[in-house]
């Protein structure tokens, strides 16, 4: 019964995520759209959670909802006028957006269908947080460090930009 509820929950989350995704792209109000995007990300985190990937779910919330979305909304608030937030979008823009979305959708579907998904092994199906950490520090240490350097460079770049503004 509980499993049943969980499975139903997954479907509910999926539908919710899809609906929110549509809302985020269709809502005329930029701010509403951004919030709908946050809802999508939360729903995805919920999906991870229902699949037993707790760590991933938390990181999803922390990084995407907590940090990235905040920055997005910050940007929206800085650019958009506070009084009138409805962003007019021209017909060509809409058409272009629709076409690019369709292409992306087809591509993703193609990848999804062509991949051979391995079934999770029985027993302990998911690596623990500790395993993840060890994996990150041993097997994937090179990309990890490269990413670190990249982020550091970004940080310095941002600092430089901010300093330039001052002078």
């Amino acid at each position, binding site marked *: 019964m509980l499993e049943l509820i969980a499975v139903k929950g997954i479907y509910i989350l999926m539908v919710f995520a899809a609906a929110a995704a549509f809302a985020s792209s269709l809502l005329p109000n930029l701010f509403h759209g951004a919030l709908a995007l946050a809802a999508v990300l939360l729903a995805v985190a919920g999906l991870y959670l229902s699949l037993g990937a707790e760590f991933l779910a938390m990181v999803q919330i922390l990084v995407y909802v907590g940090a990235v979305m905040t920055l997005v909304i910050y940007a929206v608030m*800085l650019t958009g006028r506070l009084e009138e937030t409805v962003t007019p979008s021209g017909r060509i823009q809409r058409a272009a957006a629709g076409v690019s979305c369709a292409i992306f959708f087809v591509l993703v579907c193609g990848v999804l269908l062509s991949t051979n998904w391995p079934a999770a092994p029985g027993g302990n199906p998911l690596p623990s947080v500790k395993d993840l950490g060890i994996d990150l520090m041993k097997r994937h240490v090179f990309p990890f460090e490269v990413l670190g350097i990249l982020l550091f460079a970004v940080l310095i770049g941002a600092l430089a930009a901010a300093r*330039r503004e001052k002078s």
Partner: protein
Amino acid sequence: MKNKTDTPLTEDFDTQTLQINVGPQHPATHGVFRMDLTLDGETVVRLKPVMGYLHRNHEQIAENMTYAASMPYTDRLDYFNSMSNNFGYALAVEKLAGIEVPERADYIRVILAELTRIVNHISVIGFLLNDLGAFFTPLTYAFREREKILDLFEEIAGSRMMCNYFRFGGVKRDLPPGLLERIRTMMDVFPRFLDEFEALLTDNDILCLRCQNVGVLGRELALNAGLSGPMLRASGLGYDIRKVDRYSIYGRFDFKVPVGSKGDVYDRYYVRVLEMRESLKILDQALRQIPSSGDIISRKAAPFLKAPRNFKPPVGEAYGRVESPKGELGFYVVSDGSPQPWRYHVRAPSLINLTVLEDLCIGHKLADAMVILGSIDIVLGEVDH
């Protein structure tokens, strides 16, 4: 690289300024005062003080009634220091009518004026800290001590804030018995309180951070804007009317005028603390020197207590000024020989000190604007008289 960046980055962004009205109903404004602020982000780029919400036509009212009847109205100018207001008005009219004040009355006046100064400074610091965001603690401490002094005022004058105690040529009634001892007791406790208060505030790193180098008022600007009082002294000018005019009997006391160096909010705060300590010194001397008995109102003026309508100063004009806790409080009275002043004008220190608000605030943050306003120490009753 440098050549490419001669346009500042901010010009690339379409930044908007934000106009907000702080007041007349706002938790931080001191009375019904409105600041029309234009903010760039949180930085103040323009500030327009809007006043007049409490305008009461004070001067016109005074020109339409007897000299004595204006006395209770002066209480309501700077309602924190009715004693100093009374003092200034009494001095002006005494000058006009040529009335001498008996010695004991003079001492009583000085004692009360200095107590008022303590009341004012302690509450100003309390309010300043409230503007800084300390949740009422310094204010409640300050008000506790203020309460003790106001109790003394009530005993002397019958009212805590609207004292209406000074009369031309003296004071309304003699001090009640035993009052000088009570003032003495209060004075013995007060320095200890002041030490505690300073321990709470003076070295507080957050307070220093918020107040030092904020709202710096240069000497030049202070002079040009005609400021007076602690505002001017914090900017480095030791101008104190008690020293300059030596009005009343201030010449007899040994006290010093504290002077700030930078003219920022911190200096304005600390100069007030030091002034309180100096006031205590004056009080101490006055309590020792005061004659134990004597007239409290000059013989010449006494009859007019009962019949204010008969008080007709000779034709002429006079300007009486005192060092009120907020600055130079002046009363200008012109007599045409009738029982009513022909012209009556108040030089309100709050109003004149407020004129520099915009200069002090521009370039600072919104939060600083509130603190600067608090450090100027205005009372709207006086600004909008």
